């Protein structure tokens, strides 16, 4: 059953992701977090500057991907191994500046063999965002 972020309007366009993997508790490890674009004019009364701009259907990205991203982030920001970095960690709150973020993205490109356009960098605010983007780009390959 999908969980929706509160207040986020729902896009009527077909999604690009597959939910097949989401069925059955035994497949939990291969669930993927999907970000859907939102046509917010469907629900004008819910618009506010603080609203998240994506609808998050809750299927988690591979734990392995998130974990690798955390590793690369910790290395770039010289954080101790035991420091708490999770999918929800925001790069800015971890102390990453713009150069750190680009270095991290470059590290991810090399680790996963993908290419991330600079335009996408704006949407990478958390470790989870990076993991989602990686899996999306891997799928496209």
């Amino acid at each position: 059953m999908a969980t929706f972020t509160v207040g986020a309007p729902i896009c009527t366009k077909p999604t690009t992701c597959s939910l097949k993997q989401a069925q059955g508790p035994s497949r939990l490890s291969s669930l993927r977090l999907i970000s859907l674009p939102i046509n917010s004019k469907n629900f004008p009364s819910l618009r506010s500057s603080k609203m998240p701009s994506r609808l998050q259907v809750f299927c988690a990205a591979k734990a392995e991907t998130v974990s690798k991203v955390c590793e690369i982030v910790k290395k770039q920001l010289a954080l101790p191994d035991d420091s708490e970095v999770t999918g929800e960690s925001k790069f800015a709150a971890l102390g990453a500046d713009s150069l750190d973020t680009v270095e991290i993205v470059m590290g991810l490109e090399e680790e996963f063999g993908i290419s991330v356009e600079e335009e996408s960098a704006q949407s990478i605010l958390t470790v989870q965002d990076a993991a989602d983007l990686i899996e999306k780009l891997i799928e496209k390959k």
Partner: protein
Amino acid sequence: MNLLRRTVRIPMNTFCLHRTFAASALHLAPVQLPSRAESHLWYLVPDEVKSVSLLGQYSEILSPCENEYVACIRGEQLKKTALLARVLVRTTIARYQTDGYIDPRSLKFRKNIHGKPELEWDNDDSGSRPPVQFNISHTASLIACGVTNSSPIGVDIEKKDRKIQNNIISFARRYFTPNEVERLSSISDLNVQRQHFLKLWTLKEAYVKALGKGISALPFSTFTIKSRNFEKKELNGSGDSDPEITVESVDGQRSLLSNWQFTLLELAGTHFAAVCVARDGSMGDKCFTPKKLTVMKTIPFVGDESMSGTDAAIVCGF
């Protein structure tokens, strides 16, 4: 002409003493708005702000939203930097009052479509609305805020000894222009190369920040930052020089690019700082008069020190 109505010269090491600051004693010395031919660069060294009560007073200036954000940050040093950055912006802008006292708490900010912070004024603020443009940049050990009168401005700072995790030439090939890669590759000393990389990065960041765009909207591979000479000179009062640092578009469109003036500094002995300011529309290419940049070190509510012409603000070669 005296820039500050009151320049307080206090030896900076006295700020390390614990002092109690009652709310009523907190006072922001007003500052005159720069002319259209000037820019101001304020900076703050977090390690010099040790007073617990002063930091507590600082928290009271922030909006509830800003305080919430600071509370979410893990790590005392990062929290402190986040707090001080917001305090520096609020207090600095509030000092440029043109029509009566501005409470730094009353200032409102929003972000443009690309995330650049801007001032937001209510309709009834028209009387006391100084035409201030600002941009901020910080590292763990320094916070800088550039201010102009009406001109878009971008500021970026990086620690001079910052290490780059990736291979510099690989990074440059991926994100910079061929011209810039060539220049970097021609530097044989790896440390000099690393420093040139950092200078280039701060200049490019300052440019996209001045434009209000950021790297996502204006990829660094679309424009080249070039220099005309390599001399190092101290920032002096007159500040006259040919434009040393220029920007060129990779696709050959040059029409708007002469509108931007760059200044590259070694700041506080520890950082590279790049400032990019839009030149006045009325100035043509032929009568280029560089805008004067005045550098001031500050601790809000405590004191300022002018750093122009000192070792703390050296115009550096590129």
